[in-house]
């Protein structure tokens, strides 16, 4: 006899404009199981959750809850239907009482007024299910984060949830609080409530989950019993690399024509930021491409944004050329000769309302302007030159940048930094979300820049990009540099092992 799954999602598809987010996503959860959902950034996990809880509408596919097809058009409907979501950031009402937070939206009424004694009793009952005894009349912000999270869970369960979705529930918890959360999750499961557990901390999954589904590029890759898999196996599925099979070379636009010299351009020692970056160290030589690898949450973006002066470090040392200190502001880093292409083009890269021209020359304006006035002809010449050189496909340099495709936007942003003629270019996932053709062009371009003597520090989650593109790859895990791969050691097997944290052999 086959048990009816509590949730069955099949052939889910969803696109945002022309960009497909989910192509063939599926997920099956058994009653009372703790099911992990993992994947890299952009694999489609959050889109999946949002479709499940009614925040997004799916383009195609089926969702069945307890064997019956359902269609939720808002998170509230999903909640009433038995699916509750607990988001990364606890979204409760901080200045109201614990009771109010738990009964919000389903307050017990008496003569049209809220029946407070009953509400408090209900809140207490709900919390006691999780072994929590606290004054439900106190304002929520008097409780610590872990308790708040438990209250959020209690609230979710009080809706008679069949399935509770937890999105990165441990991100703000310490190890002791984590144990409390895990106990609650096991209790829930014992009570027959299924949990969908989304996390990039793989160790946690082995501690608390029964099964795991891996997603990549908007599709479901596999579902396993936790007892059947290893960390290495999961990582290789997330990344799309078989641990036993090396990709053929030539899959990227990189060809290792650049060599790199002995002159040190950037040296970083024991960088920390007090939270997720703990001990990051790396060296970049002149004309070298250095890769920065690691899983989601390893602290790669945080590390480079401290190099660039966008965030201030809590500890560590940095030397850039002759300078022996951190930069206070991005403007200082730019003046010293660093460029930084951010990962999130939309939020941190483009100025959407401005034209290609205005976006391209933005970092150059201080050097280009004469007594505060931008020389019109020189600006247009420079932009035309870059559009031509990088073959940016556009209707003209005065077209708003938001109308360009991802690949062409990225070319404009690369040009923004190339124009400043930096000594070090930091690239954070330079080819993410870009179609294959433009991807190769950008990789070739980076290679060319490096061959011309530019030093590059490149974050990437694509192994072939790192192995074929970089002279050396520095691997971060949980904010620490745990390995540096170079020469013959730099291959996909070693990289996979290092990223998964089983780097015994490869560590240098």
């Amino acid at each position, binding site marked *: 006899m086959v048990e009816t799954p509590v949730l069955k999602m099949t052939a889910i598809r969803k696109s945002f404009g022309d960009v497909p987010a989910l192509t063939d996503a599926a997920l099956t959860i058994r009653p009372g199981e703790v099911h992990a959902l993992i994947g890299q950034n952009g694999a489609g996990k959050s889109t999946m959750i949002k479709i499940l809880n009614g925040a997004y509408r799916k383009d195609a596919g089926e969702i069945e809850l307890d064997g019956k097809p359902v269609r939720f058009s808002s998170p509230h409907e999903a909640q009433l239907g038995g699916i509750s979501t607990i988001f990364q950031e606890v979204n409760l009402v901080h200045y109201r009482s614990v009771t109010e937070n738990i009964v919000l939206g389903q307050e017990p009424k008496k003569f049209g007024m809220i029946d407070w004694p009953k509400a408090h009793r209900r809140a207490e009952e709900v919390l006691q299910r999780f072994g929590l005894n606290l004054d439900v009349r106190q304002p929520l912000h008097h409780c610590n984060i872990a308790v708040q999270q438990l209250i959020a869970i209690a609230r979710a369960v009080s809706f008679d949830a069949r399935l509770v979705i937890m999105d990165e529930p441990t991100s703000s918890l310490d190890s002791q609080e984590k144990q409390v959360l895990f106990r609650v999750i096991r209790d829930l499961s014992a009570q027959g409530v299924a949990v969908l557990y989304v996390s990039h901390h793989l160790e946690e999954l082995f501690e608390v989950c029964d099964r795991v589904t891996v997603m990549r590029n908007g599709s479901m890759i596999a579902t396993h019993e936790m007892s059947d898999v290893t960390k290495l196996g999961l990582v290789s599925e997330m990344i799309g690399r078989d641990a036993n099979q090396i990709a053929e070379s030539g899959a990227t636009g990189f060809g290792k024509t650049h060599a790199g010299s002995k002159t040190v351009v950037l040296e970083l020692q024991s960088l920390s930021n007090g939270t997720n970056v703990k001990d990051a160290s790396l060296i970049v030589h002149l004309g070298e491409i250095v890769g920065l690898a690691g899983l989601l949450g390893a602290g790669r973006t945080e590390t480079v944004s401290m190099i660039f002066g966008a965030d201030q470090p809590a500890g560590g040392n940095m030397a850039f050329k002759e300078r022996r200190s951190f930069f206070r502001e991005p403007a200082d880093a730019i003046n010293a000769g660093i460029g930084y292409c951010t990962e999130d083009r939309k939020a*941190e890269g483009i100025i959407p309302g*401005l034209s290609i021209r205005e976006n391209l020359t933005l970092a150059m304006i201080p050097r280009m302007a004469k007594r505060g*006035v931008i020389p019109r002809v020189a600006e247009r010449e420079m932009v035309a030159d870059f559009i031509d050189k990088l073959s940016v496909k556009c209707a003209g340099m005065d077209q708003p940048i938001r109308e360009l495709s991802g690949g062409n936007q990225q070319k404009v942003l690369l040009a923004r930094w190339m124009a400043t003629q930096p000594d070090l270019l930091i690239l954070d996932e330079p080819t993410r979300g870009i179609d294959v053709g433009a991807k190769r062009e950008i990789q070739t371009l980076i290679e060319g820049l490096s061959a011309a003597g530019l030093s590059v520090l490149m974050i990437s989650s694509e192994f072939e990009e790192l192995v074929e593109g970089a002279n050396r790859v520095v691997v971060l895990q949980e904010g620490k540099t745990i390995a540096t791969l170079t020469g013959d050691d730099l291959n996909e097997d070693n990289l996979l092992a290092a990223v998964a944290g089983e780097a015994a052999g490869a560590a240098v």
Partner: protein
Amino acid sequence: MTMAKAKDMTGSSTVAKINLGQLARDNGTFLALIALIVINMVITPNFLQVQTLYVNLTQVATIAIVAIGMTLVIASGGIDLSVGAVMALSGALAPFVFLSEFGMASPGLALVLSIAVALLAGLLCGMFNGWLINQFAIQPIVATLVLFISARGLAQVLTNGNLQVFDNPAFEFIGSGRVLGIPFQALMAVVFALILSWVVRRTAYGRYLLAVGGNAKAARLSGISVNRVRLATYAICGVLAGFAGMVVSAINSASDANQTGQLMELDAIAAAVVGGANLMGGKAPIIGALIGAAIIQLVKYTLLANGVHDAVALIAKAVIIILAVYFQFNRAE
């Protein structure tokens, strides 16, 4: 074959229609102004008189001048509620200088000094707003509320809350003088608008302003000092409000700390929005602000000249703002 051709033709006619609609939307403000003028020619008695033009130009100038500054502030992603109060302060400070003993003794120097002091007060108020927003990361609407209250209070303390009447023809020129037959302050509004729209298009500051308003995070990562851009923007807005305050005092031959600039912040925001400014920031249609101010003024005048009550005029203003925002949302799509 013929079907394909027919389909093609209908396709192209839709394109033409869209373009026409687009044209109307892009120049909606200007078309609305033309429509208002045409309506007035039909319904308002004596509309096509030189006198009518003068009255309107004289009254619109202060709104226009403040709206230009407001447009810059809105372009930076902020808002300035203190402009009306700053007008009251500057409007009170100028006479305070030339009515003093020193001012009586050397009127020429005092005139220059009084204007300088009024503008400086506007500058300092604007810089204070910018500093408050930068230093404490306060929302602009809250930060500028400080001077919204206290600048007028300061002006009232300065004048003991009384009307300060004066007789100073040289100063009154700011409010009632004419150059080539055009009211001086209207001319100044146009001059300010031309200068600042050039600044927005051609200078580094202008580019920074649009970048900060369009995406402050990306602007900072491109090396722009977001704080300095904000400080400068609020300062410019303050100076323009200071100038407008002097215009009001000069028109009345008296400074009135209680009334000068009352509700001006709302008129200025309305003019900027009607002119095409986007409250999310990143757009600075300076000439649009001029047209927006003209529309607001003209609607007020139309209703007044046709015997409609003042209170109704306020409602009409609200309708205009709603329409402007509605069209803005359509444009955004």
